[in-house]
């Protein structure tokens, strides 16, 4: 009865011995994204970003070959940690790119602290606290966080659109909190209002917004919507069905390709919605155009234009490769030199220059956009404005920014 268990264990033990093989001429790089579950599409686009960067370097850095090992999570922190642990402890990766979502990022950062000899670079996870509070010294984020993504939007809708009072509709977890904070902080500082009772926090995955729509106040100028993917599409359709007429302001993933590319009539409704984020489909810039062209050439079956997931993974992978090049692929010191190089690295990306602050968080450009219909009938985010070099603390000193408190349903209070 125990025979089979024994055999499996013996086989497992053998695997563990054979798999730690370590060759001198290659560097093992891990990439972790959500390749299972509902976010699979996003995870796949992330991997395209990683492959693009590697392709650009011909799978070589500092004279060594890069071996890519992929890991998959289902967007839950538990599975992210299990996959990370496997990549690091079993496959022996020395550099790891990932993960994709906010709570995974927080979990991987905590894990990074237990693996000081491995260098971690973020994928697209955008929770503030991954780098803001108790950061890990070996976790680098060359992509921006959820509050940074909103830079300039609050000011824009206050000044240009003339909105003075907005309702807020967002999912009830940390990423939308961060986005709401990033949007409201400047909006309210200028005098805008977002009453607490006009903020609606819906459970993630909620499909039926009719009750929320019924409760939306009539005396606001616009609705700020920070819902992602399916949730956003649902809300938009139901809002139109219910005869809603208020203009919208979008969070970064509300009008991402996932939503713009969705099938159905919700897409018609988002035309004209202002938003902000780390990329813009229509930015007329040589670097960006080359990036999009390379993406399309390499992945004809990908999205019509790279998503912010492909973009984030691309930037972080490229940072790793550039730094590896600089240290000549030398990781014999447990990656110490590599991390010093990474901390000081500053390079040109398809979306402008990126450098890191003292907590290894990116300072980069943010794009203010508005949804327009492209020539082929595709919806696109048209660039209105580029907000240069946005810092994580949105321009105020670190200590003062910490004083704003953790993001949450009532931060800022805005009264």
């Amino acid at each position, binding site marked *: 009865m125990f025979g089979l268990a024994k055999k499996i264990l013996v086989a497992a033990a053998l695997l563990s011995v054979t798999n730690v093989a370590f060759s001198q001429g290659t560097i093992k790089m891990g990439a972790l994204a959500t390749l299972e579950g509902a976010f699979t599409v996003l995870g796949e686009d992330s991997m395209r970003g990683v492959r693009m960067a590697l392709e650009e370097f011909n799978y070589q850095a500092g004279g060594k070959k890069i071996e890519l090992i992929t890991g998959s999570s289902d967007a839950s922190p538990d599975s992210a940690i299990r996959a990370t642990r496997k990549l690091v402890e079993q496959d022996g990766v020395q550099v790891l790119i990932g993960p994709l979502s906010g709570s995974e990022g927080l979990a991987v950062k905590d894990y990074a602290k237990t693996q000081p000899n491995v260098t971690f670079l973020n994928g697209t996870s955008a929770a503030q606290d991954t780098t803001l509070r108790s950061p890990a010294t070996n976790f680098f984020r060359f992509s921006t966080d959820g509050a940074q993504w909103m830079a300039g939007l609050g000011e824009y809708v206050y000044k240009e659109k003339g909105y003075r009072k907005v309702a807020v509709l967002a999912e009830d977890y940390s990423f939308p909190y961060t986005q709401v904070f990033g949007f409201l902080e400047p909006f309210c500082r200028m005098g805008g209002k977002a009453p607490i009772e006009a903020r609606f926090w819906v459970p993630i995955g909620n*499909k039926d917004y*009719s009750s929320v*729509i019924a409760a939306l106040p009539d005396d606001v100028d616009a609705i700020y919507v920070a819902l992602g*993917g399916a949730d956003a*599409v*649902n809300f938009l359709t139901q809002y139109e069905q*219910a005869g809603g007429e208020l203009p919208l302001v979008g969070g970064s993933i509300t009008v991402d390709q*996932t939503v713009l590319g969705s*099938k*159905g009539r919700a897409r018609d409704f988002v035309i004209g919605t202002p938003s902000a984020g780390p990329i813009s489909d229509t930015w007329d810039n040589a670097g960006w155009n080359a990036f999009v062209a390379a993406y399309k050439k390499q992945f004809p079956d990908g999205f019509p234009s790279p998503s912010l997931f492909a973009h984030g993974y691309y930037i972080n992978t490229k940072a790793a490769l550039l730094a590896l090049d600089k240290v000549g692929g030398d990781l014999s010191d447990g990656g110490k030199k590599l991390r010093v190089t990474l901390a000081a690295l500053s390079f040109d990306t398809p979306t402008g220059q990126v450098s890191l602050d003292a907590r290894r968080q990116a300072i980069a450009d943010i794009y203010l956009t508005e949804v327009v219909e492209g020539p082929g009938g595709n919806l696109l985010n048209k660039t209105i404005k580029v907000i240069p070099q946005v810092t994580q603390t949105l321009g105020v000193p670190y200590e003062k920014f910490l004083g704003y408190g953790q993001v949450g349903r009532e931060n800022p209070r805005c009264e």
Partner: protein
Amino acid sequence: MRQFIERHTFWAIVILLAAAVFLWMIFAIWPEWLITALGRKKTFVSTILNGVTLGGLYFLVASGFTLVFGLMRNVNLAHGSMYLLGAYVGYEVAEASGSWFLGLTVAFVAIALSGVLLQVLIFRRMEGDELRQTLVTIGISIIAADLMLAIWTGTTYQFSPPEWLFGAAELPVVSVIKSSGDPVYIKYPVYRLTVLGVAVVVGIALWMFLNRTRIGMMIRAGVNDREMLAASGVNVQLVFALVFAIGAGLAGFAGVVGGTALSIAPGEDIRYLLASLIVVIVGGLGSVTGAAIGALLIGLAEQIGLAYFPTYGVVLTFLIMVVTLALRPQGLMGGR
């Protein structure tokens, strides 16, 4: 009815009073104190309507589930997958043909056929072995969910129903009187009202089918005593296959109806499976009337929860289930 009033005079009065208060709340202009207590009237009326229409949708899904169980004692935990598959199939057909109604029809037929296949190829081989059948349906739902994800990815799909189903209608219910003296009527999406209408029609049709036709009679006889039905010379397997076809077909049908009201995305299978489970546990397994009552209760509980105490909405639904199980383990309308 009269019997009930005579036997439970007190409760009859309570129920009538409650109904009167409720009707007053729907049609009267709300006084200040009521607005302070419950918020705007528009919210209240919409919430009740949402609850009732959602109940209609839940009934469409759960009636098939309960029908199959009633006759075959088969707890089909792949019912949610059938809902989702129906939605996807209906979407593909509607997109290709441009006709939403064709999508609806094909979804019903296709899922009905898949139900027959399941019954003939798998469940017939393990008749009487309910637990194993249930485990098989779990296995099928795991695989189905993954394959649907492979084919239709994680993208959200939305139907384009005919124009006249889209948009909002003004109800003859006044929410407030404007300062100018003009009444403001409450608007409500036409499509949701249609869902409710469809559910009522399907409910009545099912009832007629079960109570007024020969096959319906056989099915009811089978529910009561399967062996006896077989002994009386009826081809039980044919009846089984037919019931499975109707049950599964209804799930596919509901997939298109529900997918149009909300949207189609991975994870909806679990949501509607859960809804069906709770509806039939509350209503009583095997009873179509029970499914209707359960669906109404759960739909209302969910929407009232979402509107008035969002974080505890699930608890309300759950409480209804626990209280029902404690007082009537067989469900409200469960016979056995």
